């Protein structure tokens, strides 16, 4: 269940891009609070700015203005190296197209964040196995991503995102490349892992029914602006 202290606090966050002579406001003055252990779904049509907002929270991009406080740290004040460490230790990310490295086995893909975090080599096999156990794929440990179905690949991506035991999981359209049943299974898995491991989840999606079925809160974006936030089964806040 969400706790009172916010895991992520956005205050009037904007991200503008220069496109020739014009400036595109991908994210425009968004203020949002995500509590610890909350599952927030960011909804909106294509180009509404939800993925840009997710990248800003992930520290992959920097806001043009405004502040992002993630677990007590202002991302705007972090150096490039500190942002990399933040992504490594605090954040786990999953993507619509899974983004597994095809030439590596599942084990090696899941081990990759451990290498980046400089986790001791002796400790790694157990951590990888533990992460793959969470997604029930230990029996495919030696396979390559291309030998797996879409749902299985996304489960490997979840294992990879969880292996460094992050406090915030960011998911960018995790069900976008999956059929409905598999998508539901993936979100059910995320929800189960959240309750098991205790973490905050921010998921970008345009599939409202799925979001309503699994998220605690919904935030709707349009033209870079936050249009509304809802508690699921509740009234607009």
């Amino acid at each position, binding site marked *: 269940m969400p706790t009172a202290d916010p895991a992520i606090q956005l205050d009037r966050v904007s991200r503008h891009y220069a496109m020739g002579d014009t400036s595109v406001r991908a994210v425009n003055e968004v203020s949002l609070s995500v509590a610890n252990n909350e599952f927030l779904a960011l909804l909106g049509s294509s180009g509404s700015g939800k993925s840009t907002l997710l*990248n800003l929270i*992930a520290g*992959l*991009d920097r806001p043009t203005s405004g502040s992002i406080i993630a677990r007590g740290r202002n991302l705007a004040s972090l150096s*490039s*190296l500190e942002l*990399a*460490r933040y*992504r*490594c*230790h605090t*954040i786990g*990310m999953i*993507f619509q197209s899974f*983004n597994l*490295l095809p*030439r*590596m086995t599942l084990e090696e893909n899941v081990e*990759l*964040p451990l*290498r*980046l*975090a*400089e986790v001791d*080599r002796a400790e790694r096999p157990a951590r990888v196995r533990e992460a793959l156990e969470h997604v029930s794929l230990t029996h495919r440990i030696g396979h390559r991503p291309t030998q797996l179905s879409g749902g299985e690949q996304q489960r490997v991506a979840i294992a*990879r995102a969880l292996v*460094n035991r992050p406090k915030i999981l960011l998911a960018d359209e995790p069900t976008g490349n999956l059929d409905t049943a598999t998508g539901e299974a993936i979100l059910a898995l995320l929800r189960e892992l959240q309750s098991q491991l205790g973490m905050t989840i921010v998921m970008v999606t345009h599939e409202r029914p799925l979001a309503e079925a699994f998220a605690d809160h919904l935030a709707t974006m349009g033209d870079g602006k936050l249009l509304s936030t809802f508690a699921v089964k509740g009234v607009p806040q």
Partner: protein
Amino acid sequence: MKPRDLTDLALRNLREALLRNALTTLGVAVGVASLVAMLSLGVGLQQLAAKRLSQSGLFDTIFVTPKNAFRGMGRPQRDPDADKPGRSLNDTARREFEALPNVIEVYPQVRFFTEIRFNNRPYAAVVAGMPDSSRNSGAFDGMQGTFFSSAAANEAILQIEFAKDLSDKPSSLLGQELVLRYAERQALPSTAANNDASANPGESSGGGFSVVPKDLHLKIVGIVETEPAAGYGGYGNARLLMPLATASTLRAAQVNDLRDIVHDSGPAKTTYASLSVRAKSPSQVEALEATIKKMGFNVFSLLDASKSLRTFFTVFDSLLGIFGCLALAVATLGIVNTLVMAILERRREIGVLKALGAADADVQQLFFVEAGVMGFFGGVFGVLLGWMLGRAVTIGTNLYLQRQNLNPVELSYVPWWLTISGLVFAVLVSLAAGLYPASRAAKLNPVDALRYE
């Protein structure tokens, strides 16, 4: 990322595009090979020249002549101390030289022009006495036959051209005898009151000498290409070599004998025309030269020639190195091209790495290590290939030399420093080539990289 993980990932990445990376590595190998082959030939030629010159015995030898000696073929005196009176080059002086530190031996040059008879036909030749120490100096390596059986044997070693004059089949001369006809000095009763007591009674001792023709039978035991320790001062290279001890006992009239009579002025007469002083190593020649000069003698060594030779080979090696580097420069462009292509292909992967927590430095180091690994393997294969090229040139040259009835030579030589330098240079050049691609990869915007299809 830890170095071992970086290396693991770099090797994995290199294996993925095996053909392209192997070709790039081969490019580096060819570049290093050309560099190593060129320099190994330079070093080999330098060693060959140095060996030949050291075999000549000139670089560790100081030729000492008395101050009043002719400086060969009418050359003017350049010694600033020329006006000062010189000392006699007699046995006293010889013993003083022998007592000097770092002197191995002191021996006179016995060299005279005479007639040699073989199969009742006369031949004119310069004869030289060879000290027994030259047996182990390497000067006679590769000769036909053997060195003198003893220090005072009645044996001769012929210079190959002279041997060809004697016979169409020079090797058939080995074991045959020839006759040395020489002019023996016999001292006349002296008119001077104070002859040098230390002088050999057979030597010219002040009052002049008579010349008596003598014969000596010598057995031909060897044939050599050129005379080692060829004399200087215009006496010419010897065509017949014999043991120094044997040559000394002949008391053969030498070029300087008439001069000694003309210059004879009492007890300070010259006993030897010249003495050869052998130092322990060429590095001690300069100091010994100065010491002997201070003692009042003329000295001559090929030290300056040796320095010039070293300078020449330094320039020669540099030029060869520059040509070798050109090939390596082309290989460097290959590395840049391969890594830039890799960035384009792995753009999305770089984005994923950054999303998972890779710092810019991690990505930069990854590309850097990939460049370094290609450089290392290129260096290893390059040094090997360069050595093989050098061997091939040597073998080809020796086949040609063999057809010309000449002795084989070692044209190329890869010393340990060239192996290490080739390897280090290949890695350094590859790392330099990786600088730009690595920096470009590190600067990739992760959001753009993740969008890349």
